[in-house]
């Protein structure tokens, strides 16, 4: 039995390892055109800023793959022959398979802005993009970043560390406020400004202007303002990378359509991770998850299914974390950007604006927690949400969740006082 995996990202790797666990004898081939070995995509920024070398971003030693008998192929798959059970490769021999996992990840969004294909305009997703940035930064003094999400602020931090003057265009009235409540979002606005980044809220890109040699010269905003720059970062989100699957006739919607065990509409062909769209029967939108841990969990389940186990994906309680320059953020459960009918928000912010916590309750049960500048325990917060604990219970046990390093100033007493006041 031979399993092929397209993509060596976290999803592909998790699947390969789970197949190996259940099937010690199967052949496993993992293919990627991006890199010879698995590396941590979220660490791209640290390579660029000089915190780590590329090698340091590889989660496993190179010998690990051979030890686990996972064959690595460096190359691009150009077509999936699902009926003939083989992969057509760019300038390489085809790869035959019995079972296939598509884990091709995401690609950066481009919304058809005039000038988006000029030199110096780019997104940030892959090593290719990073490499491109090394070229684009040559001789550059200023950059405009379009789109106020997580990758945008990382790109801003990267360019800022190379002394590039960054103008950050955010369409909303505050940074990432389509996801974060306004208070948290404003904390981040402050952080961005404090770094000396020119943050322009309620500002959209209208057009990218090039010079005679096809390189970007500046952008024009929806306020008809011209901003000079040599780099334009397009970071308006990502979408599932489905081009290959679609061209090969595998069923796609926004992502590659799969069931809760990651089966596509073709026998023995599976898809998981960023590129997959899980069909949700009945009400609700189909599920697309595009973060690291979901890729890991989806890959693990997909691998189990491929290895012949009965396994169904359970998304579990949502969580995530990020870091905005020096401000850390964690979220557990569901915290909306604006309070929904029937939900109550309780919020505390340290007078120095460096720390905050938000607890959201619905029908008397805590359903979401945001912390900024504080570290809280995943296990504890998750159990509160899962068990539907009351606000009182959570406040009584708030100290258990603190995950800050030793000797850090503890804010729990103040938090409890403030939130009790709000709840009264």
């Amino acid at each position, binding site marked *: 039995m031979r399993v092929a995996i397209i993509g060596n990202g976290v999803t592909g790797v998790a699947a390969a390892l789970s197949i190996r666990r259940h099937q010690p004898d199967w052949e496993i081939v993992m293919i990627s055109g991006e890199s010879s070995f698995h590396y941590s995509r979220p*660490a791209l920024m640290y390579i660029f800023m000089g915190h780590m070398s*590329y090698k340091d971003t590889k989660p496993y030693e190179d010998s690990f793959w051979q030890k686990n008998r996972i064959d690595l192929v460096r190359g691009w798959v150009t077509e999936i022959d699902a009926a003939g059970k083989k992969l057509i490769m760019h300038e390489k021999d085809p790869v035959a398979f019995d079972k296939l996992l598509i884990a091709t990840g995401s690609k950066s969004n481009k919304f058809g802005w005039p000038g988006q294909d000029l030199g110096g305009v780019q997104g940030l997703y892959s090593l*290719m993009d990073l*490499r491109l940035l090394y070229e684009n930064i040559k001789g550059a003094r200023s950059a405009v970043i379009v789109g106020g999400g997580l990758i945008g602020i990382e790109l801003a931090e990267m360019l800022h560390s190379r002394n590039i003057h960054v103008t950050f265009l955010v369409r909303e009235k505050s940074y990432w406020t389509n996801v974060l409540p306004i208070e948290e979002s404003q904390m981040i606005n402050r*952080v961005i400004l404090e770094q000396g980044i020119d943050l322009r809220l309620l500002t959209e890109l209208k057009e990218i202007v090039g010079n005679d040699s096809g390189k970007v010269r500046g952008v024009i905003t929806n306020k008809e303002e011209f901003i000079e720059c040599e780099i334009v970062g397009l970071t308006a989100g990502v979408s599932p990378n489905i081009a290959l699957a679609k061209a090969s006739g595998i069923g796609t919607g926004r992502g590659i359509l799969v069931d809760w065990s990651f089966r596509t509409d073709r026998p023995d062909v599976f898809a998981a991770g960023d590129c997959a769209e899980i069909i949700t029967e009945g009400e609700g939108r189909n599920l697309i998850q595009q973060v690291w841990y979901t890729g890991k969990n989806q890959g693990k389940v997909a691998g189990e299914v491929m290895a012949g186990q009965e396994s169904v994906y359970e998304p579990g309680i949502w969580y995530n974390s990020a870091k905005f320059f020096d401000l850390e953020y964690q979220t557990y459960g569901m915290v909306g950007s604006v309070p929904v009918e029937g939900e109550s928000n309780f919020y505390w912010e340290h007078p120095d604006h460096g720390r905050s916590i938000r607890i959201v309750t619905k029908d008397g049960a805590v359903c979401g927690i945001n912390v900024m500048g504080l570290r809280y325990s995943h296990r504890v917060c998750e159990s509160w949400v899962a068990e539907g604990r009351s606000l009182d219970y959570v406040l009584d046990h708030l100290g258990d969740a603190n*995950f*800050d*390093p030793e000797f850090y100033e503890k804010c729990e007493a103040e938090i409890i006082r403030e939130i009790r006041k709000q709840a009264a």
Partner: protein
Amino acid sequence: MEEHTISYDFDEETLGFEEPEKAPAKPLGTGEKISLAVLGFGILMFVLQAMGMPPGGTWAGFLLVLLPVFFGTASYFYLDFKDTVPGIKHDNIYFRGLTNKGILGWLVGVVFTGFYIALYWFPEYLAGGIKIVNPLSLSLSGSPANNWFFYGFLYTVAVCVFGVRMFMKYRHNRYQQIRTASVMFFQFGFAFLIPNILMLFNQPEFYLSYFWPLKPEYLFPGTFSYFVNHPGGLGMFLVFWGAVMTFVATPLLTYYFGKRWYCSWVCGCGGLAETMGDPFRQLSDKSKKAWRVERWMVHSVLVFIVVTTVLLWVNSATSGAVFGEASMSLKKWYGFYIGAIFSGVIGVGFYPIMGSRVWCRFGCPMAAVLGILQRYLSRFRITTNGDQCMSCGNCSTYCEMGIDVRAYAQKGENIIRASCVGCGVCAAVCPRGVLKLENGGTFKDRFPGSDRPLGALIDSLKHA
């Protein structure tokens, strides 16, 4: 498929991700410039006086060196960090020669190594420097400065000056600040002032912060009888102190707090590594192979020192009848190979090449003892925050002991490694808040099998 994707044929392993171009930086502030000028003046004073110019050998001469060097460097570090936003400061580490084994790094390595060679074997080359610190030695210990006093002095200044740097670099992190204050305190008080003052009162030169087996001679029979017979009774106390620290305090404190109570809070070697060595911590080797070498080496040194100590005692009990000169030569070898070459020349000299904890990791017998205790009988562990790890590698990169922290974190396992000195830097640099150093309530819940320490130890030995 897009053109720029498919035509990408960089070999990311070897090429393509060196330093990206940088736009011109803001010029150095006036304060920083003045600080560097002051430091330069101090160094010039040192060089001139070392070459025999006046006022070398007087208090004035000494202060003309110490004050500008200390305040120049300290104020430089202060100003350098002051206007930045508090947070992790690791930009450019992999682009700088000094911190990424470039020419500057090797040069500094050669200078450090040369200094140690001079210190151990050719102290006459340091005579100029020794003369400068003479006034301090005379008033502290009552005797003229020698190479060891000079060394202790430089060492202490380095810990304090670079301690200021740590303070500023981690001004958002109280664990780092308190820990840095602690190593500064123990180096300055216990490893510098007290031993010298003891000598002033005609007592044996004794380091209250070093014990067997790091200072093996404290439990050698020769030292023993010398101390016990020393007039004044203090010697008796020191022998007692040494024995209690080794046999009672070490296991007890390690049980409660892990090895860190010593390695990154008290010890002088650790003190230097955590201050002057901080810029080099990322150079430690994280490979599994290095880990294997480490286990064999550090435990061999421990066995060696235990055997030597035992032989010396047997010898002294039997008045040399059993081993004759053999145990004495073991002791000499140890002093030469381990004490001089390993802990000094390689341990500090190779900071810019192999990272700041080479000695602590591969050579220190005290670390070996503390490590065994920490691994099997301690409440200390580093816990991981659920599944928040995204395998970025910051923790492993900045672990000075070369522990692949990520390997545990990405599996959600506790990190319980004999070598972990509890510096807390992995937790500090983790951008997702995944790691936390903790003294749990018990030693039993740290890893599967940790409730049976002896069984776990035997298992490990079987797999070695």
